[in-house]
């Protein structure tokens, strides 16, 4: 993804996807919904270092996230995900999976501290009614990082 692609674009003149009552999706949301990155449909052969799952009681979405961690740098080297969720959940998590793996990977501390607002910024906003979908990915990511830390004695070093 380039900076240009991430810039907020308006589909309809005067419609701002950041406005709380808007139902307009940004081009970034649409791009990641139609071409989601890092989806893992069959996890049977995937050796994850940490896994996380969460669900939204509001709309029944379920989200799973798998991560691999570089043992040298303790940064996330791969992030896969799968959801039975809506367009906003798919686009949010797709963008998140790019954010945590780009530039040689995000540190575990930063990943634990990732906020929905950082994902929203990269998406060019989401309607308020879809905000809860954007939290699914980062909640599952947090579970995956905690799972990794638990398996590795909370230090990032294998037991």
């Amino acid at each position, binding site marked *: 993804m380039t900076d240009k692609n991430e810039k907020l674009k308006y589909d309809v003149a005067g419609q701002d996807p950041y406005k709380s009552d808007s139902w307009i999706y940004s081009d970034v949301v649409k791009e990641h919904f139609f071409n989601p990155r890092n989806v893992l449909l069959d996890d049977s052969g995937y050796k994850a270092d940490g896994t996380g799952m969460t669900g939204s*009681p509001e709309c029944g979405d379920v989200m799973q996230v798998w991560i691999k961690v570089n043992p040298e740098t303790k940064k996330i080297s791969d992030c896969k995900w799968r959801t039975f969720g809506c367009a906003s959940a798919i686009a949010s998590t797709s963008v998140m999976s790019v954010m945590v793996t780009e530039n040689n990977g995000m540190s575990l501390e930063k990943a634990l*501290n990732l906020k929905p607002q950082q994902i929203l910024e990269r998406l060019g906003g989401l309607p*308020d009614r879809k905000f809860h979908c954007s939290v699914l990915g980062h909640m599952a990511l947090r579970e995956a990082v905690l799972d990794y830390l638990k398996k590795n004695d909370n230090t990032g070093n294998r037991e």
Partner: protein
Amino acid sequence: MTIPETENNRLILKEKKEEANDVVTLKFCPKNGELPDFRAGQFVMVGLANKELSGITKSYTISSAPGEKLLSITVKRKGSFSQALYDLKVGGEIKASEPQGFFFPSENSQDIVFLAGGIGITPFYSIIKDTFKKNPDKKIHLFYSNKTLGDIAFLKDLDKLSAEYKNLRIIHLLTREQTRDPRVKEFKRLDADILKRHLGDLSRKDYFICGSIGFVNDLWRELKKAGVKEEEIFTEAFF
């Protein structure tokens, strides 16, 4: 998310306290066993026995502090689920999940700024009580925005806390009412100018924002525009 069917996650309503317009605190004791351990700032998923609302769960922040005899949640009457909780009678029962969530300052945070919009005060109320009980040297600024004076939950309790702890500063803001009440300092929406006026330098502080999605997202952008680093901002939006 479902709450496991065990007898240990049943809570019984012992006391009810009106806090503000349409806001009530519900204080629970366990039906069996003991109250769960939790960190100030965490929430529980709540389920109700009502036929129409069975199977639905909603998250509510714990407004009591660890160590208090009863476990409290503070509810604003909004939507059918919160309305049913608001109407719950003493002796009534709810199901509650294990406490969860990560919205609290780290042990290392020394200079903490809380930005609360309306019912978004609940985690901060619990954290303030807990923090000063353990470490009165920490510094906390609470910016608490409401529409009207009657909407301010925990007003008297917050007065008491700020009288007791010199390191707690509370700045009340009202957006839809003018009042001569000396406790209210600002009469507009919270923004970076107001923060700068009261805090001076905005750097080297940990900011926690809690309230509606719009409140949280607006202040996130406002803080970032003012040069606050992303890793110094923590958010929890109520929806």
